[in-house]
Structure formats: structure tokens, C-alpha cells
């Protein structure tokens, strides 16, 4: 007889955090489109503000629809709690700002989404937080870059745009040996393909704009607390282990134990920085999550067909997908991403910048835009769009060749995707 077991991934994708609405019985997630929530009495109100009562006060701090999403993503990632925020960038900022301040330092993979790189390289230094960027494939480089002021190690499950697979167990070991947490951007993999907390990561975040919502209709982010990191033992995290003047002397580790980080992130970060998610956005992300595994399996299956097609095409110089032949992380991907390495990857068109531009303008099914993780297939040619001011040398320094094309493979009929790519590749070579 099988023993007791936790609810499975697909059941959690549909149900976690969302029993039938207690007020109305609504089976779909109600959108609690309300800025504030009425206090039953003055003492109850004081109790909510003082963290004695559970419930909602004001939708910048928490909202019932957002809470459903937070619980669901926490459940799917194997964490103890989560915060829904305005965007993936807001989630990254919130993670950093909750435990680091002026004079502190981060160690990050140098293969990051451009917006994340900008935040760490140019913006956070204005607030006194420095970052050292290292090769995501080099655990020793992470270790060597750690300083006494380091507060966080950070990387993406699958890097952007080179598809470097982060060896999460190895980097987590480096982090934990130094008494530091590891933060992972799991946007490209989603918890269906990879669960970083199970692999040793301490904090995980998503741009929910991408595969979690899955349909390109919202901007949102979610930050998940794994709950295993011992903020007291490390001695480096006074925001969590010492009294917080901004909350009447509350010491988060003393009173909230494993939930210290996520409690401070909400009580300080959402309250003071204010990058909250709209409840309607949370509803759309919840809708997307209901079909996460089904969509991701189709994304991966289509990607494999597209990768095989491109590998055999004369107009393609190279394909960088972790499952592709010759990719340096192929073995690692098979261990950490056994169900698939996602649906975002890059390849090189023969003929450089001009060929890349001709290619992208002849696509009809793939949409030329700046996003990934839509159910529809997407494409971008950095050299002629996001990075058009850079010459070949500057592009190379950023790890981008002039013919680099980034695809986000959708869930259309795969034959239509390869036909579209084939037409455009032929045109690119004329």
C-alpha cells in the first residue's frame, strides 16, 4: 500500500493556495480588487498591524488574490512562503535590499538578463552595494570573489543569452561554506523543469511575466524563501538577526525562525519600496500556473524539434542549447534539468549583422519583440535591436555575436515553426 504523500505538482498547480472562496464558494480565483480591507474592530486592527492577527490590511502589503499566487509558487518551488511583486526586477531588488545595504557586496554570474546586470553593475553601486561578476561555470571563481562584506551569491538556472547551466549544488556549497545564501533566478526553467531549493538554493525568484503566466499578458515577479538558510548562525545579516527599528524592535529570526527573510521582505520591502503586484495580475499568473507543466512540456518538445532543425541547416553557424551536441553544460543539464532545458536559446546566423536582420524581418509565426516565455514563439536579434549601438568588438565583450538570434519557442505546431525558420534562413542568405 502506498504511504502518505504530499500533493503532486499538477495538483498544486491547480489548487495550492486556493480552496473554494470562503465568502462566495467561487471555484475560480476571485480578483480582490480592493485597496484596503475593513477592520472588524479597533483591537483587531491593532493586532493586524502588530503581527498578532493574520489577514489583510492594504493591498501594497498583501492581498487575498496575491496571497493565492504567493502560496502556489511557494508550494511549486518547495519553499515556505513567497511574495508577489511588480516585476522580476522588483523581486531581485527586494531580495538584495532585504539583506544588503551600503558597504555590502554580491557575487553574481556574469551571464545574466540585461536588466539584472544593469541593476547590479550600475544602479546598486549608487546605493553602496557592489557586485563582482564571475563565470557561472566556475565555482572556484565564486569562492574567490567572496569578501567579508559579501551577502549573497546569485545566478540564473539557465543563463542569458548563452544558456550556461548554473551548477546549483556546487555554487550552493560554496555559498554555504562561506555562511552566505544563494539566490537563483529560475525564470527560464520554471519549477516544472528545475526546483533550485531542492538543489541547495536558498532564495528563488521569477519574472512571472514569462513562463509562469505564460501568455505574455502581464508584468509581474515572485520571490520565494526556501526557509533553510540559518540567518543567525552566519552572523552577517543584522537586518534579520537584530532588532528592526522600523518595526518596533522586532527581531525576525527570534520571532519568525525559518520565515525571517520573507517576513522582513514583506514588512519592510513591500511596505517601504512599494513594488507590489496588482491583484488582477496575480489572477492572470494563477491562470497560467494551472497549465504550467503541460505548457512547459510542449515548449520543451517544440524546442527540441527546432534545435534539431537548426543544427542541420547550412545557414546556421552554431546552436547554443544545453541539450545540443557540443554544449559545454550538456551533462550538467541532463542532471539538473532532466525534463528539459527550457525553451529559450540562441543560435548564430551565417552572415553576421545584416543576415541576422534579414532573417528576423522574414519571420511570420515568430514575433519580433523583447520578451520570452510567451505561449507564442518569440525572436530577437540583439545586434540590430537591443544592442544596436554596439560595434562587433563591444558585442563580443558582452558575449553576443553579430549573427546571434535568441528564440523563445512557443507551443504552436512545431512544423509551422521550423517552416517559418527555414523560410527566413533562406532569405537571410540572399
Amino acid at each position, binding site marked *: 500500500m502506498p504511504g502518505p504523500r504530499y500533493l503532486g505538482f499538477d495538483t498544486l498547480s491547480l489548487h495550492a493556495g486556493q480552496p473554494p472562496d470562503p465568502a462566495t464558494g467561487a471555484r475560480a480565483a476571485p480578483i480582490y480588487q480592493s485597496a484596503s480591507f475593513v477592520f472588524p474592530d479597533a483591537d483587531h486592527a491593532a493586532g493586524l498591524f502588530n503581527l498578532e492577527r493574520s489577514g489583510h490590511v492594504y493591498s501594497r502589503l498583501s492581498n487575498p488574490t496575491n496571497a493565492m499566487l504567493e502560496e502556489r509558487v511557494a508550494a511549486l518551488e518547495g519553499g515556505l512562503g513567497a511574495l508577489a511583486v511588480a516585476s522580476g526586477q522588483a523581486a531581485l531588488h527586494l531580495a538584495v535590499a532585504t539583506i544588503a545595504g551600503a558597504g555590502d557586496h554580491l557575487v553574481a554570474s556574469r551571464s545574466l538578463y540585461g536588466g539584472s546586470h544593469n541593476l547590479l553593475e550600475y544602479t546598486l553601486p549608487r546605493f553602496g552595494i557592489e557586485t563582482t561578476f564571475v563565470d557561472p561555470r566556475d565555482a572556484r571563481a565564486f569562492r574567490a570573489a567572496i569578501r567579508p562584506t559579501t551577502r549573497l551569491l546569485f545566478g540564473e538556472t539557465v543563463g542569458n543569452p548563452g544558456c550556461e547551466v548554473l551548477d546549483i549544488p556546487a555554487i550552493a556549497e560554496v555559498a554555504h561554506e562561506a555562511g552566505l545564501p544563494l539566490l537563483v533566478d529560475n525564470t527560464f526553467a520554471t519549477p516544472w523543469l528545475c526546483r533550485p531549493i531542492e538543489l541547495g538554493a536558498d532564495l528563488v525568484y521569477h519574472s512571472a511575466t514569462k513562463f509562469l503566466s505564460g501568455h505574455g499578458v502581464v508584468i509581474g515577479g515572485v520571490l520565494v524563501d526556501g526557509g533553510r538558510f540559518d540567518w543567525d548562525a552566519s552572523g552577517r545579516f543584522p537586518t534579520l538577526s537584530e532588532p528592526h527599528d522600523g518595526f518596533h524592535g522586532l527581531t525576525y529570526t527570534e520571532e519568525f525562525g525559518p520565515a525571517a527573510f*520573507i517576513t522582513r521582505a514583506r514588512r519592510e520591502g513591500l511596505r517601504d519600496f512599494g513594488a507590489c503586484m496588482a491583484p488582477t495580475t496575480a489572477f492572470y499568473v494563477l491562470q497560467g500556473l494551472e497549465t504550467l507543466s503541460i505548457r512547459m512540456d510542449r515548449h520543451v518538445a517544440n524546442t527540441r524539434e527546432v534545435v534539431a532543425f537548426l543544427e542541420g541547416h547550412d545557414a546556421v553557424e552554431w546552436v547554443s542549447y544545453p541539450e545540443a551536441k557540443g554544449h559545454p553544460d550538456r551533462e550538467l543539464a541532463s542532471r539538473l534539468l532532466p525534463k528539459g532545458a527550457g525553451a529559450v536559446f540562441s543560435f548564430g546566423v551565417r552572415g553576421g549583422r545584416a543576415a541576422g536582420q534579414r532573417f528576423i524581418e522574414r519571420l511570420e509565426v515568430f514575433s519580433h519583440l523583447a520578451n520570452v516565455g510567451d505561449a507564442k514563439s518569440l525572436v530577437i536579434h540583439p545586434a540590430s535591436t537591443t544592442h544596436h549601438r554596439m560595434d562587433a568588438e563591444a558585442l563580443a565583450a558582452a558575449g553576443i555575436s553579430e549573427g546571434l538570434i535568441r528564440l523563445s519557442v512557443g507551443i504552436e505546431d512545431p512544423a509551422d515553426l521550423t517552416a517559418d525558420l527555414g523560410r527566413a534562413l533562406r532569405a537571410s542568405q540572399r
Partner: protein
Amino acid sequence: MELRIDDRRVFAATYGREPDPGRPTVLFVHGAAMDRTVWTLFGRYFVRHEHNAIAVDLPGHGRSEGPPLESIPAMADWVAALLDAAGIDSAFLVGHSMGSLAVLDAAARHPERARGIVLVGTSAPMPVTDALLDPARANERLALDLLTLWGHSARAHVGGFSVPGMWMTGGGLRLVERAAPGVLFADLDACNRYADGIERARAVRCPALLVLGERDSMTPARAVRDLEAALPVSRRLVIRHGGHQLMSERPNQVLDALAEFVG
């Protein structure tokens, strides 16, 4: 708050205010493999309402030095010693699961220390199945999973937690994962061996409140009848759809019951 009992360091949360002997005191005792943090919402309430609140880490749990205590009576004596160390004559004693047996035993054998007892997720006796004891003895991960699976109602496994954004079973699991090897078994073994609960209940002289979960599969509400009958003055609240981890499953209902009882 840090104290010393039997020359060992003891930690208890007091929610920003050191205990004042002039105020009534509510003392909280956690369950097996857990710690003070299960009581935070409740402790903060009582401190704001002009009470002392003391949520202990039993020896070997949370921030208190080990080893864990070997029996329920030893925990009861330790509770009395903690009140001595804190300079408190008597208190409302609130316990969950294993902690409920500790406060029951304390109220019976140290009656002058108990102004009232609140037993949350309780039963007496509190037998523990070998299916849980065996993996706990071997420090196997299975024991933590069973504790989490059985410790929450079926509804709790779906979520809809009233503390925004918290995944209840994930939080419960992370808490018990923090227990040092051997602690869970020591606690479960102490519960399993405690045979004096009904006799002790007959010796209790203070009011008692029982807070039970309708769907508690670890200490089923139906298994509490003898205990309830043995207590001289008792009140009972059965929380609809509630499991064993009532402080996280239904924090507001538990707080309402506590607040009314303590007054």
C-alpha cells in the same frame, strides 16, 4: 530572554518586553521537534494586552542548549523551574501537542504555578505509532515528512493560509528540519511513554481549555473524552476542518479562544 536552568542556557521569546512580575503571564510550550516560533502571533497579542508572554525553547530545541528532556514530567518540572528563573509565581500555561502534556503535568504537580491551562492539539494518552517512531529513531527524513503530512489537515495541504503568502506545510517542514538529530525521537518517545495523563488531569485544580482540530489525525478529537472528563473544570473548542497544527492552520480562531480564556 536568556536564562539558565540546570546550568544550561535557555532561550524564550518575550516579544520585546522582559517579564514583569506585576503583570499576568502566559507561558507557551511547543510540540515535538518544534520551537518558540509557533507561538509568535499569540505572544505578540498578549504583550500588547499588558501581559507577560514567554514562549520557551525546550532544552535541545531552538536556541536552548540540549539535550532534550527525557520525559513529560521532566518537562513539567522544567516549566516550573523556568518560572522560578524568570521570577514569575504563576502563569496561564499553554501547550501544543507534547507541550500540552507538559503543561497538564505541571498544573497537576505544581498546582500553585498554574492559573489556567490551555491544551492545543492534545490527547491523553498520546500514543505514537511505530510507523513514525521507527524512522524518528533512525533520524530518517521520512519521520519529518510523516510529521508534516499527518500533522496538517487535508485542507491545510491545499493551503489558503490566513497569514498572507505563507505555504503552511512548507513552513512546518522547515521548522522540524531544524531539530537536531535525536530530538524528534526523544520527544515522540516521551509522549508515547507518558501514561499518567488522566490521573494527572484529576489532580488539576485550575480551569482548562481544550482546543482541538475536527480533522486532527495525530490527536483525534474523539480520543480526548477521558481527558476532558478527568479535568475538573474544562472548556472545549473543536475547530472545524482543523488538523493538528492549529496555530498555523487557524491562528485567529486559536487566538480568540486563548484571549477569551485568559481574559
